[in-house]
């Protein structure tokens, strides 16, 4: 019987996933990725998506009506947990496709748009997001990319930045300004843009950690058919809230679970090899303090998932608080790993086969946690204003 057939018996469901993972995940996938080019990495990601698709685990969280399995949170948590436990690859480049696109189309897309775009995801169609601009980061609503109506099309001119995997994307969730004279939140319109359309140029952005996961979009007279508009003209800001509010809890949860297994493997290895840091009381104390905070974070991530399951869950600031805690903890853990690795840890290596095997890569990458998806500074504003009711002056 397939994995999904077992869904009514959670333990059996877990075991089915575990068996499948044992069988399908190449034991040497990390070793291969260490030396992989971006193209090889993307090919691998597409392969992994296809494998998940075969057993119905490509879009298990989507409602049945849209081709998903309509699984409950319990099931999604079980899947994430098994993936983490098995150190299976993450479908990282598909985040927008799996989460943000449906998170936008479900509530705001036309039937035609849903029919046309949703099925592609399970087949590996890749989506990116065209929101931020060089001069509109934290202040997203100030975006300037213009969209001008021309018959049954809109003509787009402008520039987007921080667009994950846009170098490989098929479609883009695009925010544009259609009314430059309206108050800044009121003149924005939301489109689906074909990344293969003429006038779309993507340049990868090189990151401080040596990789290029983001692209910069240069849009010159790109023509988008009017039917690709999501929501009404000048109503794009409201639609964008759905995109930004898409439930990423399970991803964050899986990330925390993966870190748990990473740190456990690291510690076990330290014990086996009698690592020097274990003999330094101060370092050992630092380490156990990390664990206490890590456990707290894992519990909080579970709690926020449960909260979101409740029908009319109030928009609490707990996600912001969790982001502040776990991203800074991640940074502190990686920094600790860098310190104990000594000069060897400064040798350039991007990915590594074993957890924290490339501490500097992990440390440099940790900034994506503290900066991307709303900088921690913005999160503090949110916690203070919405959570603590401190006035905005």
């Amino acid at each position, binding site marked *: 019987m397939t994995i999904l057939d077992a869904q009514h018996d959670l333990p059996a469901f877990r075991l089915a996933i575990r068996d499948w993972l044992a069988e399908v995940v190449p034991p040497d996938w990390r070793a291969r990725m260490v030396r992989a080019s971006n193209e090889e990495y993307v090919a691998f990601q597409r392969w992994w998506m296809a494998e998940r698709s075969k057993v119905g685990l490509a879009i298990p969280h989507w409602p049945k009506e849209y081709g998903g399995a309509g699984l409950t949170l319990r099931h999604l948590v079980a899947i994430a947990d098994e993936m983490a436990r098995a150190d299976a690859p993450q479908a990282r480049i598909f985040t927008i496709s799996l989460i943000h696109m449906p998170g936008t189309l479900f509530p705001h897309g036309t039937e035609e748009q849903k029919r046309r775009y949703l099925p592609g995801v399970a087949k590996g169609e890749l989506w990116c997001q065209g929101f931020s601009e060089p001069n509109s980061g934290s202040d997203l609503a100030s975006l300037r990319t213009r969209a001008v109506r021309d018959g049954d099309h809109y003509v787009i001119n402008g520039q987007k930045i921080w667009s994950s995997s846009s170098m490989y994307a098929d479609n883009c969730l695009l925010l544009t300004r259609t009314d430059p004279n309206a108050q800044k939140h009121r003149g924005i319109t939301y489109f689906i843009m074909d990344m293969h359309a003429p006038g779309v140029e993507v340049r990868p952005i090189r990151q401080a950690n040596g990789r290029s996961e983001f692209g910069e979009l240069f849009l010159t007279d790109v023509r988008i058919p009017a039917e690709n508009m999501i929501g009404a003209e000048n109503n794009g800001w409201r639609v964008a809230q759905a995109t930004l509010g898409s439930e990423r809890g399970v991803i964050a949860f899986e990330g925390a679970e993966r870190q748990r297994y990473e740190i456990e493997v690291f*510690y076990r290895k330290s014990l086996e090899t009698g690592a020097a840091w274990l003999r330094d*009381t101060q370092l050992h104390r630092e380490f*156990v303090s990390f664990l*206490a905070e890590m456990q707290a974070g894992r519990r*909080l991530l579970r709690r926020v998932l449960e909260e979101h399951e409740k029908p009319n869950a109030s928009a609490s600031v707990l996600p912001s608080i969790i982001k502040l805690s776990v991203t800074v903890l991640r940074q502190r853990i990686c920094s600790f790993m860098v310190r104990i690795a000594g000069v060897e840890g400064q040798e350039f290596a991007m990915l590594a086969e074993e957890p924290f095997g490339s501490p500097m890569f992990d440390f440099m990458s940790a900034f994506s946690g503290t900066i991307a998806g709303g900088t921690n500074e913005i999160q503090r504003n949110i916690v*203070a204003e919405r959570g603590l009711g*401190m006035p905005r002056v």
Partner: protein
Amino acid sequence: MAAKAIETAGSLDQETLDALREGIAAVLAEQSSSTAVHAFIDGKNSLDRELWSQAASLGWLGFGIPEQYGGLGLGTHGPAILHTEIGRQAAPGPYISTLSAAQAIVETGTDATRNTWLPRIASGEISAAVPATPGATVLTRSGTGVSGTLRCLGARDAAFVLAPAGAAWVIVELGGADVNTMPMWDRTREVIDIRLQNAQPAAVLEDPEATSVALLRAMALATAADSCGAARSVTERTIAYMKTREQFGQPIAGFQALKHRAADLATKLTVMDEMVAHAIHRGAADEPDAEIWVWLAKAEATEAAVFVTTDCVQLHGGVGFTWDFDPHIFLKRARLNEVLVMPNTALRDRAAAMLAAITRTGRSALELEP
């Protein structure tokens, strides 16, 4: 027996616990208001005694005590909630010492010992004293008598002290004993010096290691919970003050630098609460790794509380430095909590040693679900 009490606890649903918490919070908010506590530390009322009888009549003191000994059998959850709410109002009284002693007796006392002491604690008839840092000093035993001086947490009129004597742990009644109250910076709790001269123990607990660990665990959770309540409360009071305090024509709560600090405090509060919840959860499920999280919860939560209360004094500005405002009361309470039970450095070392031991057996110490 301990196991049974624990099972009861494990099966308690969140709603029941929340209701319990709200009930306690409501009573304490009224009885142990800022005004009442200030009056108490200035010697103008006997809030500690009033609260104690209140707690007794409401059954709070029996939370951790199994039904058959007159308690409610809420395991560790009940007392943790009580200590949190007590800390939130900086309420005076020998709660940590008494409930921790009770817990040690529940877990490691003979049935006779339990029958003798637990019902009297549950009813609030008596309070207990325990060493402020158990194990630091050990009473000497010669023949049947025990002698020595112990610095204890507990009220000057505590009915008995639970303490290590020679190779065992003993319960010694304090009627007529030489007891001196130490003046403390934290005036909301009492620390006493007990001098015993060949005193005859009322009971001997024969498994010293078990009693010692049970007491340390109970005290560690109690101080951690108390610190969580105190830190959250002083933060709430500080933010409330910042919303009313105006400088440069605006409430200071509107200054972004202070807003970001408040947000960081809120984050710390959430994390420390969860550390304590994790420790309680693992303990209630009787997991072998529970102790790791109890020691760490105490170390992390008490230090976080010192950080938070210190910053709250600072965020108040000038008035934070005055006797008439609340922050210093919580800061002094947090400072005492920090040094109770065992130095936090030692607790982390214990946690590290236990983590290594468990990991070496091939088991994981990082599970969340039982």
